[in-house]
């Protein structure tokens, strides 16, 4: 029996790995990712290099313009003339925007300030201008209350927040929410994608077997359970091969090609691997008071590390933070939830493939399977990532259909052992339960043709005798 199971898994594996599509996809994805990363890095760096010029038309009589502080990214220039002229003027001068401060503006309640931009105004630009204006107005207000410019300058300090989390024993550990979140996000995405891509392959595979009518021949040699599990395991091996190759190739491409392309001698360590295999999860030490886009983060982190070498008195490095995460637990948990989640969902996808005649009928049965998966991902990256110890996080990381994603999001933040143990226990129970259900549906479904299957029907199949 065991050898038949292996034969089946082997066939599933080889028949897929030898396909041209597999080879093309395996080679293309790292190149695409590298290309994508390169473009983002380029854009991000050019984004940082250029300075946006914003014209200011100040009719308020409050002299707000003089309080607008230009930075490396944003330069303010006052302009005169009518508003209509200014509107045309800034575009002609190829400047990036125009701030209009109308007459009779109240310092206490500055309403009616307008910002004109070319085309759509990016959120980033808008918030930068907004914060510059906010500062200007607060300066004005403080001046109004009698502070001198010198006092103002001394008042404004640049705070660099250093987050330190205490573990249960009270030991201090450097914590960086962004690094931890990045890792959580990457792990969840990997599991989510793996289950989806290869789960659907299981479903298709079963559907093909069914429509080619080979089931009867197969079933006279092997048990339906072996057939189903052989397929699931074989396809898992395909997925692992693909992910592994993606990882290795991405690492190779990133470490060899990327420095050539960007012309910088970037440290070719985890950072490079991190962008590609894990799917754009560069992690940064944020020390600016400005929010940055994900793309910019990557470039920054690299710059930061290069800077680190020459500046040993620097703050936490990426590697320090990485080293302080519970890596052993994360790896252990990731493997458990990755495999457990895949097997659990894989069995369900297999059952759906067996239940329907026609691939187009799969939708109605796909929904209850994909819903918890999509839900756990969406809730995971929105709610759990923000509050990894909250009740939503707890319950979702216990329920076997959502725990594979919910729990790996929590892992880098640290999870109490009893919760991890309970969750894994429930996952195993859930796995056994779904495989039992799926095997029953599968067993009846694969020989059932020409019947429009309903949920009620599926329910009955569970209690059919051998």
């Amino acid at each position, binding site marked *: *029996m065991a050898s*038949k199971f292996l*034969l*089946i898994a082997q*066939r599933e594996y080889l*028949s897929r790995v030898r396909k041209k599509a597999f080879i093309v996809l395996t080679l293309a994805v790292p190149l695409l990712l590298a290309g994508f990363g390169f473009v983002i890095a380029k854009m991000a760096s050019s984004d940082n290099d250029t300075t946006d010029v914003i014209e200011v038309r100040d009719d308020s009589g409050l002299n707000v313009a003089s309080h607008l502080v230009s930075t490396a990214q944003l330069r303010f220039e006052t302009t005169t003339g009518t508003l209509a002229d200014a509107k045309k003027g800034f575009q002609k001068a190829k400047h990036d925007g125009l701030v209009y401060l109308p007459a009779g503006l109240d310092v206490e309640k500055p309403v009616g300030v307008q910002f004109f931009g070319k085309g759509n105004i990016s959120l980033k630009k808008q918030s930068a201008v907004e914060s510059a204006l906010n500062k200007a107005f607060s300066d004005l207000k403080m001046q109004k209350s009698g502070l001198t410019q010198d006092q103002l300058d001394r008042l404004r300090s640049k705070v660099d927040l250093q987050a330190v989390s205490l573990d249960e024993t009270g030991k201090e550990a450097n914590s960086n929410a962004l690094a931890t979140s990045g890792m959580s996000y990457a792990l969840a995405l990997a599991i989510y994608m793996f289950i989806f891509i290869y789960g659907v392959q299981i479903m298709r595979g079963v559907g*093909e*077997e069914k429509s*080619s*009518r*080979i*089931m*009867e*021949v*197969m*079933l*006279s*040699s*092997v*048990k339906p359970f072996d057939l189903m599990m052989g397929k699931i395991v074989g396809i898992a091996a395909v997925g692992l091969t693909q992910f592994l190759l993606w990882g290795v190739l991405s690492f190779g491409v990133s470490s060899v090609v990327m420095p050539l392309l960007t012309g910088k001698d970037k440290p070719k360590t985890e950072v490079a691997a991190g962008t590609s295999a894990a799917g754009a999860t560069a992690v940064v030490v944020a020390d600016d008071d400005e929010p940055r886009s994900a793309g910019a983060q990557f470039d920054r982190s690299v710059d930061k590390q290069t800077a680190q070498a020459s500046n040993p008195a620097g703050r936490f490095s990426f590697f320090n933070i990485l080293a302080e995460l519970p890596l052993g637990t994360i790896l252990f948990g990731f493997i458990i939830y990755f495999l457990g989640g895949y097997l659990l969902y894989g069995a369900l996808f297999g059952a759906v493939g067996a239940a329907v005649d026609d691939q187009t009928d799969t939708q109605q049965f796909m929904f209850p399977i994909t819903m918890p998966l999509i839900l756990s991902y969406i809730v995971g990256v929105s709610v759990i990532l923000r509050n990894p110890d909250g009740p939503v996080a707890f319950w979702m990381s216990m329920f076997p259909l959502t725990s594979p994603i919910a729990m790996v999001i929590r892992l880098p933040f640290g999870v109490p052992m009893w919760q991890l143990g309970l969750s894994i226990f429930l996952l195993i129970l859930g796995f056994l339960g779904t495989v039992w259900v799926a095997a029953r549906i599968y067993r009846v479904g694969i*020989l059932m043709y020409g019947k429009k299957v309903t949920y009620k029907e599926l329910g*009955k199949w569970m209690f*059919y*005798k*051998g």
Partner: protein
Amino acid sequence: MKPILEAIDVRKAYANHVALSGVSLEIPEGSIFGLLGPNGAGKTSLIRIITQITGADEGEIRFRGERLNPSHAAQIGYLPEERGLYKKMKVGEQLLYLAQLRGLSRSDATARIKQWLNRFDIKEWAGKNVEDLSKGMQQKVQFIATVLHDPKLIILDEPFSGFDPINANLIKDEILELRNQGATIIFSTHRMESVEEMCDNIALINRSRKVLDGPIGVIRNQFKTNTYEVEGTGHPVLSSPDFEVVEQKKRENDHFYLRVQLQDGVRPNDLLRYLIGSVGIEVEAFREKIPSINEIFIRRVGETMPETLLETANALL
């Protein structure tokens, strides 16, 4: 001869109908066994139980005296009515895979595949994907897959469907050859002429029950109706109440054909004597009319088919 397979009081029910009830059969080793019955009678259910695709609700199947178990799969070959192969797999690899699943070693399987592909003269197709083959060619591949592991019991469900007459003949010869080499063949079909030609034993299943079984000669004799066929010249008039003319045909040049049923206790010699004694009658041929399997089939199925079945049949369709 010792039976290779015994079914003892087998019962199988699905959610809303009974597929088999109390079916018992004995299939003698080394014979060709015809499993007959109208559509939906339960043949496929019985075959699926023998091939262990499903299990019986009650009763037992014995293979060479042992209770049927998965280890017997290696000794059973099955050609289902719904043919199917992995379309995107190469012929050679496909056969190797199926043979290995039946418990053949890789090297044994490879050698036998070569042998069979040569025998069917399709060895140049070994590297082709199944979907690139013609339908008849696929059928041949499937037949090879059925017998590749040298099974002792071969179950063929409508083996000739999908074959042109030439290839059907080829398959027929292969089946007889396999039997001569000692294999037992269960043969499920509607094509009565092939049953008559090839089968040693038959069983007739109708409405989930076995209605008839035994050696084909014995059954045909059982269904004899004491009817005789006569050919000759002249104008026969049978006025005796002992004889009932079932059919009478006139042919050219004064030839006639008569089919006569004799009353109980009347012997064929009585009919012959009567005819010879008639004026102007010349008897050229005289033989007993033995019913064909087709006639028996229709008669038995008709007898066991009440009107309600027609309604059920309509409902199922």
